[in-house]
């Protein structure tokens, strides 16, 4: 059965002053967008990708989001969240934010194509895949090294691949890849895994998947396209050994997308520090979802963050005043 997805950027007026601009359209942003649109806030979402959903779109199945007893496709869930928010009037613009000016009562958001202005800003920029940090990683990205199984899995039919990581993502994507590849290694630094027990059981029961534990990546040799090699160090014996593979899929956690906010907002290990109302240390600026400094990063927690932030933003917008243009200039006072 063929699928046909429709996602086109909306149009919006850049000369308007928005009540709320949401940066990033993952589950947190889309939920905040849904709530804000229902509060009738003049809301705009800026999303760098052409489809909303953030990291949801690069996962195959979501099994721990309530309300879907039969599990749901990540891309489908993302699409439905977007559809629901748009239904209530959220407008989504496909533009990547280059820089922000968050001080003052009118916030300015700069993209390649112009500047957007808003009374409040909600940061939902999430996080990106962490890289391995080995030599030649950039050189072979897209040519043997991938961070998205749903994108590139179909390009490895009957091939041998190695999944790096020991968490839920690594296990879920290994199961997905086993539909295409003839063999999937899961390479992990330690003997125990962070992946949920249910996923571990499934991996153990899958004939195509082999666990390689206590193994640290030393280097890769992809020079010969036909004979790619992954060199690992056995952490118990300190001996090097190699795996003959065709590709590597990396799922070793994430790093927050906060570089454009550095210096304007309080960060903790790169993540944004918020209070109980999801407000940052900058007046008029909130953050929600994976980008926040917090313990658990899930779709289920992100949507709660987004809803809560929208609630407090709505209260704030009600009482918002353009302080700079209200107060008389200093010179006038002195006179």
């Amino acid at each position, binding site marked *: 059965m063929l699928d046909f997805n*429709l996602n086109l950027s909306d149009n919006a007026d850049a000369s308007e002053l928005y009540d709320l601009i949401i940066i990033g359209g993952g589950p947190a942003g889309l939920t905040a967008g849904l709530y804000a649109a229902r509060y009738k806030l003049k809301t705009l979402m800026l999303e760098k990708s052409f489809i909303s959903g953030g990291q949801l*779109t690069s996962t195959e199945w979501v099994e721990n989001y309530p309300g879907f007893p039969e599990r749901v496709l990540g891309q489908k869930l993302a699409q439905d969240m977007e559809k629901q928010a748009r239904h209530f009037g959220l407008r989504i613009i496909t533009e990547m934010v280059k820089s922000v000016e968050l001080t003052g009562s009118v916030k300015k958001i700069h993209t390649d194509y112009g500047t957007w202005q808003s009374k409040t800003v909600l940061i939902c920029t999430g996080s990106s895949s962490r890289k391995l940090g080995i030599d030649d990683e950039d050189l072979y990205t897209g040519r043997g090294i991938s961070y998205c199984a*749903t994108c590139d899995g179909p390009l490895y039919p009957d091939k041998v691949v190695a999944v790096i990581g020991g968490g839920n993502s690594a296990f879920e994507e290994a199961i997905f890849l086993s539909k295409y590849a003839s063999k999937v290694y899961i390479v992990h630094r330690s003997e125990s895994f962070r992946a949920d027990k249910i996923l571990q059981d499934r991996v153990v029961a899958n004939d195509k998947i082999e666990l390689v534990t206590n193994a640290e990546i030393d280097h890769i040799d992809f020079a010969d396209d036909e004979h790619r090699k992954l060199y690992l160090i056995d952490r118990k014996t300190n001996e090097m050994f190699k795996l003959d593979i065709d590709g590597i899929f990396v799922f070793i956690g994430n790093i927050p997308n906060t570089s454009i906010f550095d210096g304007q907002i309080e960060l903790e290990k790169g993540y944004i520090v918020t209070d109980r109302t999801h407000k940052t240390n900058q007046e008029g600026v909130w953050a929600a979802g994976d980008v926040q400094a917090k313990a658990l990063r899930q779709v289920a927690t992100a949507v709660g963050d987004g809803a809560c932030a929208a609630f407090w933003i709505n209260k704030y917008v009600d009482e918002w005043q353009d302080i700079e243009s209200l107060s008389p200039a200093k010179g006038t006072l002195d006179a």
Partner: protein
Amino acid sequence: MPVLNNEVLSEVQKILGSMTKPVVLKYFSQPFECGYCKDTHELLNDLVSVNDKLSIEVYQFDKDTNQVQSSGIELIPAISVELKVDDSTSTDYGIKFYGIPAGYEFSSLLNAILMVSTGVIKLTTETKAFLNNLSKPVQLKVFVSPTCPYCPPAVMLAHQFAFYSKMVKADMVEITEYPHLANKYSVQGVPRTVINEKWYLEGAAPEVMLVQKIKEAL
């Protein structure tokens, strides 16, 4: 038989409602050795059924050799999105789709139709200046898979370049339908943009990176 369900079709109708000038989809097909020709044809029939400004012209790859040559068609199924000037003429910008534009690429097709019809594009002044000064031809091939959410931006960007500049031609190539091309261009990750058969760009790169790569290729 329609391939789009009613829900998608009514959304398509709404989106195509903003078309201004007429657009013709030149469709190249073949009754044999083409896994997705039938589905692609039905998809295009679905599209033209919801908007009068959109029409389809069907050509046979093995028989209509003149049209195949003048459009520069290399594979089937192929779609060329052109501005309809009158009943016998249309403007070919070099905007092509090889393979069925299903999955996420369906948006790329609608985006191309709207762009050709309305003339609206979103490129920075720097990019436009660069394209205005192009003196050598540029051929962009964007390799995609239908399940790749990062692919349409690369396709849409390449198609915008083709629409804006006469020197640029841009193809979407759905790689799972042409395994021999995956080998030839060593595509192991999508999107992958190939510039003039030789230079590569991985991922959904921003405008400035594509411009930079084209500069290197020339």
